[in-house]
């Protein structure tokens, strides 16, 4: 069997554990001895800054010291073993077997089979490896970190606090800002330091900016409430053979857990948006965590299970942004009026490749691409875009093939999200959904899938808005876009539009209109359709789709796909419309969600007199004028009323186009 067809095994000895005694079957090339302590027979090949961390906290219990060593060794081994080349025919080297032997202080706890099994479940899924097996041996000790390294000097309990993972990215920034604004808690920010100066600098600079007094919010006391704890861990003396470091999140959360436990909390908080957490694969080869699953619901559940065992009490890993998109994150920062901090945050995963004054972001990794489109979707491109990207794919040729793949597949997936009906989403994503829904607490399968579908749709719609804005901003009829820039990728235009791909993009494409109405009002709907015919001929509106909800057809079925793609949604309001559970609860609700997110404009058209002013859409501008019903005596004829309605729709369409 060739190497391409064998699963790599690593047998790892830690803290001086006897490798041969535990793994006599291991081959010499499969053995790895990791050591961070000075003064032992093995030369140090790993930096674990445990004494410094203990010094910051004064004291940690033996089990927690063991945990920090274990997570550091796992991280070290992960970086030490190669996962194969990106251009292997098949990626059989990616999934490895790990066998760890670790000498520990709290042997009685670690040797329990369920603890090793919890570690295996967590790490295998998180990293996409075949297995992580652990054996432990007793007898490990380390010297006191300093004179205060005793229980009585331990960091004081503080239950009015939150422990938050702090990477210096947008999501953790938004989380910290919301916590500062909405609570009075102390915030203990936790970071892993891997020896990358750029990352440390980003975290420090952003924290400094967060701590500065905000004169519009004098009561925040940010400088006083924000505390930052860092834990250093990296390979020593050699470059990492593997850059992907999928186990790093375990290290990150373990640091936060240890601190949280010490100050008497039962939870840590991870701010990460749901689209990134779910990270649906964009290509078939992105399996086994080649698209990360750091905050995937299954990872979070496995972490909670493991930390609960270590703490000896129920422990939670909270993800408050799970139902947010990246655009929502940016909008939440904007809502707090802290646009100024966005450029100081760093989302890029390739900062180590960005040098000099080229910018703080590579511009083309998946995180940079997500950030870029979210910025445009949130309408913040003029506030925060300036010069942070080493490669600007909006104006420059993208020469890097990986970058082209990342950009195109990101937009294509977002487009797919907008076109999938609920059934289509379920059918296409059943494999991934099965792994997610089981771990979404307090939700049955139906609720979970519908909510996940809406989240993905929201993301798709937001990317769609971003693409439209980018297209308009970069569409100069007198110049050709740079080859292989993003505007060039949009050629053969109107990508994300459903129809008429040959339409001239210099003019605004026709706008899609959707009707929601009760079957009782069918004749009135036909009258309205006639009034709109001229707008269709003039290509101001493209075509309309409607949903005829018949008597007795109030089933909770699929939402019409066009409701999710139309720019203008007309609610044809009457007493029967209001009485229809489907029209009112399902379609109207979805329409209002799209309206509120800016993805569509909803216009109530009052057909017949009814008590519509107390409805959810009462805040919207209704047609005809002043919401006088089409069939009311206010109008001499219904034609007169429908003419006013058609004019109102024309104005709305023009406003919609100008807005884009």
């Amino acid at each position: 069997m060739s190497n391409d067809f064998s699963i790599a095994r690593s047998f790892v000895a830690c803290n001086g554990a006897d490798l041969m005694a535990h793994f006599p079957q291991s081959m010499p090339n499969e053995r790895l001895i990791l050591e961070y302590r000075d003064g032992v027979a093995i030369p140090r090949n790993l930096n674990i800054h445990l004494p410094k961390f203990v010094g910051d906290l004064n004291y940690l219990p033996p089990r927690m010291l063991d945990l920090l060593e274990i997570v550091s060794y796992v991280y070290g081994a992960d970086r030490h073993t190669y996962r194969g080349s990106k251009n292997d025919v098949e990626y059989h080297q990616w999934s490895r077997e790990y066998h760890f032997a670790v000498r520990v202080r709290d042997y009685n706890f670690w040797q329990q089979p369920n603890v090793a099994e919890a570690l295996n479940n967590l790490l295998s899924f998180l990293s996409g490896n075949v297995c992580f097996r652990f054996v432990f041996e007793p007898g490990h000790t380390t010297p006191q970190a300093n004179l205060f390294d005793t229980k009585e000097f331990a960091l004081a309990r503080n239950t009015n606090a939150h422990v938050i993972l702090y990477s210096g990215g947008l999501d953790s920034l938004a989380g910290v800002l919301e916590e500062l604004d909405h609570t009075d808690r102390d915030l203990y920010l936790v970071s892993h330091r891997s020896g990358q100066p750029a990352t440390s600098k980003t975290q420090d600079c952003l924290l400094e900016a967060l701590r500065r007094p905000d004169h519009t919010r004098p009561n925040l006391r940010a400088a006083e409430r924000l505390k930052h704890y860092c834990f250093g861990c990296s390979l020593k003396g050699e470059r990492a053979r593997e850059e992907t470091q999928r186990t790093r999140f375990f290290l990150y959360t373990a640091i936060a857990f240890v601190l949280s436990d010490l100050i008497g909390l039962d939870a840590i908080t991870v701010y990460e948006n749901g689209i990134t957490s779910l990270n649906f694969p964009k290509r078939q080869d992105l399996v086994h965590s080649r698209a990360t699953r750091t905050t995937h619901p299954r990872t979070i559940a496995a972490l909670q299970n493991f930390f609960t065992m270590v703490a000896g009490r129920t422990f939670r890993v909270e993800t408050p942004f799970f139902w947010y998109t990246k655009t929502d994150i940016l909008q939440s920062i904007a809502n707090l009026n802290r646009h100024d901090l966005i450029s100081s945050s760093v989302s890029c995963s390739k900062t180590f490749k960005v040098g000099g004054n080229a910018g703080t972001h590579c511009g083309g990794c998946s995180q940079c691409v997500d950030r870029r489109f979210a910025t445009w979707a949130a309408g913040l491109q003029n506030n925060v875009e300036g010069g942070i990207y080493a490669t600007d794919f909006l104006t420059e040729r993208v020469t890097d093939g990986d970058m082209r793949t990342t950009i195109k597949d990101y937009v294509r997936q977002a487009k797919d999200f907008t076109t999938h009906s609920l059934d289509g989403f379920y059918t296409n994503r059943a494999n991934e959904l099965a792994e997610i829904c089981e771990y979404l607490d307090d939700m049955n399968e139906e609720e979970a899938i519908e909510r996940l579908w809406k989240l993905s749709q929201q993301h798709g719609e937001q990317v769609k808005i971003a693409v439209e804005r980018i297209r308009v901003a970069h569409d100069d009829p007198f110049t050709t876009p740079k080859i292989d820039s993003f505007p060039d990728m949009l050629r053969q235009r109107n990508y994300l539009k459903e129809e008429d791909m040959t339409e001239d993009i210099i003019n605004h494409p026709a706008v899609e209109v959707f009707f929601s109405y009760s079957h009782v009002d069918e004749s009135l709907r036909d009258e309205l359709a006639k009034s709109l015919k001229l707008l269709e001929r003039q290509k101001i509106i493209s075509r309309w789709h409607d949903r005829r909800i018949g008597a007795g057809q109030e089933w909770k079925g699929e939402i019409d796909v066009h409701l999710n793609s139309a720019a203008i949604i007309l609610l044809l309001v009457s007493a029967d419309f209001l009485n229809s559970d489907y029209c009112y609860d399902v379609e109207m609700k979805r329409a209002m969600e799209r309206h509120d997110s800016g993805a569509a404009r909803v216009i109530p058209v009052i057909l017949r007199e009814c008590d519509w002013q107390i409805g959810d859409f009462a805040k919207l501008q209704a047609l005809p004028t002043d919401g006088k019903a089409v069939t009311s005596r206010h109008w001499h004829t219904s034609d007169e009323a429908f003419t006013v309605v058609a004019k109102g729709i024309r104005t709305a369409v023009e406003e919609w186009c100008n807005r884009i």
Partner: protein
Amino acid sequence: MGHERVGTLPKSKSWRNIVGLMSSGSVGGTRTNDFDSAAIASATLEQVRHRFQRLQQDEATRVTFVFLVQVAVAARSIENDIDLRRLTLDFSSNITPLKLARALQKQVATTSDFPEYAAIAQSAGIDALAQWYDTNKPQQVGLFASFDNSYSTWHQVSTGTGFCELSRLFFANLLRRYLNYFLDREASRVIPSLIERDRFRDHMEAHIEDVSQHAFETSKIVQSYSAGWFNRYAVKGMPSQQEIDGFLSYGFGKMHNELTREPIKR
């Protein structure tokens, strides 16, 4: 968080020729001719001929197919006497595609050959179940149907015709996913515009659908073979390992032949 490892195909001449087939015909972002999906599929399968055989013989592929047979057998009757405890399936309760997906994932997780193949086979099996259910559920019934609707839908898979379609979907999805495992790495890199990139996916999917339809429906031999196989070996219980292997070998062989012979006329 959110990192993706972007893969590429090997730099060898034969692989570059396949990449060339994907990018050929594009002038300045506009295609001058259609993608030759038949040639791309055929060349890719030829390039990985031995690997494709390994995939067919992989433990996870067999486990997935056995699972589909078990579903079909179990759906025959609520009061069936097949031991389904290992399946964790109970057709006397409301069975959704997701419940089946979870049960299959648990079974595939016990296999120990190659994780790459296991991921492809498992996904193809779940695709087949979800697509089959979506197509056969009564109109106006959502995915979260009542027990009666759910059972009457799944019951249809327990006939020779129902099983034939389920197995066709499995083979088609396995092939689609395996081809995409390679082609997805380069398609967005070399196809200039987004619209063309989507069109390439649509062409490849349509081609594989054509091939599988041709292999399983147009070809009466396979249709009657699979229905006959099911009716003969799965009437009273699960077929033997040898019978399962025989069917897999036949189905894969047929699909492979269809893909590598002359292009399908649409």
